[in-house]
């Protein structure tokens, strides 16, 4: 090939690259659907993002490698270490509208309506995006997808989803041959008080099933308080809970006769991972506890 021909190729390549860049930049405006079913229009690629909701949003931004666009997060004990130095905008359940406004964000992720925060931000002309409550792994995926679209990182989001899905399938497959174990997932933050159990509709229920368990409280909805008597009579072989709450279950004299307590099969699960992009790791923990020695 002649020199000029090479030049032509180069020009073509650069032009193609430019077209690609422009195409990527021209994705905007993007329209996504929020938890109310409203269309949220995002005019430009957000570069000043504030997370005013649960840490899941922060994790997604980090996993999509957009940490440099995150300017502040809401305080939460489950915040990932990457954001330890970022400014705080109140707590994740009650973000401070005034502080958020002073940050001049172009996208606020996750505020609820508890104290009317979302309404005020919207009134002030801020673009706000809150995704539906997480009650299953598909909700985590759709949150990743929605946030990815909003950030202009659709492909990264699909890759992240694919990666998590693959991990989940691998874990799930490994327990397929096993006999299902009777399990309950309890939150017992107060000693000697009837705990809250994951019923159907809770993400913990889905995780139990995928880890090769059988949820003994599949017949109740949401996260009801269940009587100790009922736990005794349904006699779970394994009890999952938060690590800090194991003591509250094992020391409860009324639960002494339950198989899980008798056999020392009350396990702590890192609950911060459950509603998170690390959900597969929580599932892995559960699978290993249900079928040890594999």
């Amino acid at each position, binding site marked *: 090939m002649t020199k000029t021909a090479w030049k032509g190729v180069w020009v073509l390549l650069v032009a193609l690259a430019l077209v690609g860049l422009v195409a990527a930049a021209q994705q905007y405006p993007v329209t996504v659907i929020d938890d109310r079913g409203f269309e949220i229009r995002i005019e430009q690629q957000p570069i000043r993002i504030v997370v005013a909701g649960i840490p899941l949003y922060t994790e997604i931004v980090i996993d999509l490698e957009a940490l440099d666009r995150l300017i502040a997060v809401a305080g939460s004990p489950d915040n990932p270490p990457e954001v330890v130095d970022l400014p705080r905008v*109140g707590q994740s359940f009650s973000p401070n509208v005034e502080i958020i406004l002073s940050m001049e964000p172009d996208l606020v992720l996750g505020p609820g309506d*508890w*104290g*009317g925060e979302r309404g*005020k931000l919207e009134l002030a002309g801020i673009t706000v995006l809150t995704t539906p409550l997480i009650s299953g792994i598909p909700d985590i995926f759709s949150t990743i997808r929605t946030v990815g679209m909003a950030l202009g990182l659709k492909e990264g989001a699909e890759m992240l989803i694919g990666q998590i899905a693959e991990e989940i399938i691998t874990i799930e497959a490994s327990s397929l041959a096993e006999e299902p174990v009777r399990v309950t997932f309890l939150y017992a933050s107060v000693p000697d008080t009837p705990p809250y159990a994951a019923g159907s*509709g*809770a993400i913990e229920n889905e995780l139990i099933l995928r880890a090769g368990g059988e949820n003994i409280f599949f017949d109740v909805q949401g996260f009801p308080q269940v009587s100790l008597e009922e736990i005794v009579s349904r006699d779970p072989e394994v009890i999952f809970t938060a690590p800090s709450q194991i003591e509250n279950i094992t020391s409860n004299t009324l639960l002494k006769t339950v198989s899980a307590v008798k056999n020392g099969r009350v396990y702590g699960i890192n609950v911060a991972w459950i509603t998170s992009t690390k959900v597969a790791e929580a599932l892995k923990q559960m699978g290993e506890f249900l079928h040890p020695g594999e």
Partner: protein
Amino acid sequence: MNRNRTYSRRLVFAVLLVLTVPTLLAGVAVGPVHIPISDTLSYLIGRGVSVDNFSSVSRLIISQIRLPRVLLGLLVGCALAISGGTMQGLFRNPLASPYVLGIASGASTGASLVILLNLRGALFLPLGAFIGGLLAAGIVYRLAQERSKKTSVYTLILAGVAVGALFSAVTSFTIFLYSGSEKITDVIFWTMGGLGRANWAYLHILTPIVALGSIILIAFSRDLNALSMGEEGAFHLGINPETSKRIMLGVATLLTSSAVAFAGTIGFVGLIIPHIMRLIIGPDHRFLLPTTAIFLVWADMAARTVASPAEMPVGIITAFLGAPFFLYLLKKKGARM
């Protein structure tokens, strides 16, 4: 002596009236985000004066967040304290509060139904709370109507307690039905009460109601003085106790329901503030009622700043600030009460 007392009352009245201005100003100037007081002033006094170096964000924070909030605090504080003072006078009972007729429980039921049934729309929440409050009070009035068409205050109080309990049970049951829903937190936050939802639309509705209601109650404060001596005495003073009572109860109910509709059930203000003013300036309702308004603005200022950037429910502050002050006054002047 008589002359002297009147003078001091007038003085207290004037001082409080004058204090309202710096209170409002301070309420707008103080917040988790620092905005220079000179900017705040120039914004409030003359729109357009030196706004060039005054960032649009500060303007947004002042005009859309702090100002509505402070004004809502003034209106709600005024409504609750004036209706609280009126109820205490009418019922001749120091424990009476604006919520004595079950309005708070009724409003909570209304609000939680709106939240849990997911009725969206800017004014559904206040409307639901308002209807709930009025419904509860209406039931209580019906129950307290005697055959002679007279209204018994004792029946009112007792029916208020019972109807309040009934509505609380309805609220708890709804919460139970929806357990596990994210909306439960919304309901709990609402019942704690607060001024965080303040916006101009709320103020446009609430201002005329509170202004008119307060004027009517203050206009009736002479009747209230007479009634607080007893209905027979009032009758001999040429007052129709039944008519006055009904008007005052009706207006106080409307005021309270409106305040609760926009700010949730903020406790303590309607119960203690009238008592504090009673201890300071004496039991004359003509002076008592107008002096009760600004306390809630102070409390809300504290609520916004004490735990910044987190916001405390204002009910915690009203009790924290108000209770010790009330106890101090009670100890000092208690005999007069």
